[in-house]
């Protein structure tokens, strides 16, 4: 049974078109965008009409899935009795190679989210979109948007230019920790590198399935580079990552840590311990075993009931009807996943918002 008052940690308001962002640009960029005839920044991570990009019953006759607040209320917030939903906007600001243009788009998206969504619906919170090629500019954007208490997270992509643990990125984590913002890493790539560890796949099916490996890589990087030794309060949330792969990954990483500790001596706890205190994963999609009893076993392997955070991943198509809680999920965990764990993860949710 869905717990009333749930916190949905992954919903995707859709930018209707580049036009919608233009009012949030300076005159200079408005004219550049028009003069140069920019295309929509829509990532191949979500082909427009693919079944995962939007569930069939969430596709409107006109306009985009999750394109309006009305759609989100009717299709997502109301039916799932959500008290809070966190908006992760996937418009492709981060895809660009120019740090200036990327920054500009990120700011426009953040302003659009704040005005069109967060200001108009008290149940909504947002993630700050930043480009990651210029870390100083990313930190500036975080500082700017952190003033708005409705922003609770910084949004990064699962595959970018470098593994996210690299020290080059640490000012972003410092800023996030300073402001009580979580770091949200969301499925998708900026495609500045081939989207798998062995090159470019031929099929979208491979690309989407490969997101799990991207998250595994980022987890390894964040842990091994010592991000959590330096920023112990930081919470990192893996969004739309799948989660049933987590125990196997940690077994391997922990095993190697025992023998190679001397290479990364700042990692003073087992990777499994670090995940328990600092890493969270959203519920959808659940890459579930064929039988529900095995799902319980995987949860047992995770050795913590604090890791999973409820999400619908709206409007992506991950489950049928109202079946957002996978079969086999122990009833005793439902409230933890839907309410307690998200509250404990997003410090800024606790702040009252006028």
């Amino acid at each position: 049974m869905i717990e009333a008052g749930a916190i949905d940690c992954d919903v995707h308001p859709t930018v209707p078109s580049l036009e919608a962002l233009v009012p949030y640009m300076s005159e200079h960029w408005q004219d550049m965008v028009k003069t140069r005839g920019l295309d929509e920044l829509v990532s191949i991570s979500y082909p427009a009409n693919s079944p995962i990009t939007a569930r069939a019953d969430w596709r409107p006759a006109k306009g985009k899935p999750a394109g309006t607040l009305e759609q989100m209320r009717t299709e997502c917030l109301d039916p799932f009795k959500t008290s809070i939903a966190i908006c992760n906007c996937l418009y492709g600001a981060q895809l660009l190679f120019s740090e200036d243009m990327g920054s500009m788009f990120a700011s426009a998206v953040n302003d659009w989210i704040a005005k069109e969504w967060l200001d108009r619906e008290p149940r909504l919170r947002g993630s700050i979109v930043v480009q990651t090629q210029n870390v100083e500019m990313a930190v500036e954007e975080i500082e700017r948007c952190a003033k708005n208490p409705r922003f609770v997270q910084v949004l990064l992509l699962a595959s970018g230019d470098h593994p996210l643990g690299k020290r080059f990125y640490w000012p972003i984590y410092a800023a996030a920790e300073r402001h009580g913002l979580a770091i949200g890493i969301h499925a998708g790539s900026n495609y500045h590198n081939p989207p798998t560890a062995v090159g470019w796949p031929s099929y979208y099916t491979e690309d989407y399935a490969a997101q799990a490996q991207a998250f595994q890589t980022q987890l390894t990087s964040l842990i091994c580079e010592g991000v959590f030794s330096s920023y112990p309060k930081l919470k990192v949330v893996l969004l739309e990552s799948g989660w049933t792969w987590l125990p196997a990954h940690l077994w391997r990483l922990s095993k190697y840590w025992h023998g190679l500790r001397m290479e990364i001596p700042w990692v003073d706890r087992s990777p499994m311990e670090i995940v328990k205190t600092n890493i969270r994963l959203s519920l959808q999609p659940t890459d579930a075993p064929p039988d529900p009893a095995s799902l319980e076993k995987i949860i047992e392997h995770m050795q913590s009931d604090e890791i999973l955070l409820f999400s619908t991943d709206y409007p992506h198509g991950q489950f049928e009807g109202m079946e957002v809680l996978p079969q086999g999920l122990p009833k005793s965990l439902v409230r933890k996943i839907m309410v307690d764990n998200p509250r404990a993860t997003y410090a800024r949710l606790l702040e009252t918002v006028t």
Partner: protein
Amino acid sequence: MSRHVVAPTREIPPGSRKLFTIKGRPIAIFNLNGDFYGMFNRCPHQGGSLCEGAVTGLVESTAAGRYSYSRRGEIIRCPWHGWEFDIRTGKSYCSPDKVKARSYPVETAHGAELVEGPYVAETVPVHVEEDYIVVEM
């Protein structure tokens, strides 16, 4: 327990080690700066021959990129999977998870204190009598 006179001290110069069989068990004897230490020659992880491992110091860190190196020559790495053991005490330098027993408070400042693990290499008491190395087993 009995005393076993193993070898004259000059057989194991400072910084070196040697393997002996005492009471049927393989025992590695180390000389750390004139002090002798003994260890059962099987790694508690999967039985690797500890005597064959590389000896290093203790690498610690308070922050990424900063290395503090101490106790050079006093840590042995198992030649198989690289687990580190303190030659003096046999203690290992990684702890497998003890989930329920150990909750790690996030608010504590992390000084990267090494968690000494429950995997311990078995040590044997060694002393010197008139230039001879003696093991009690």
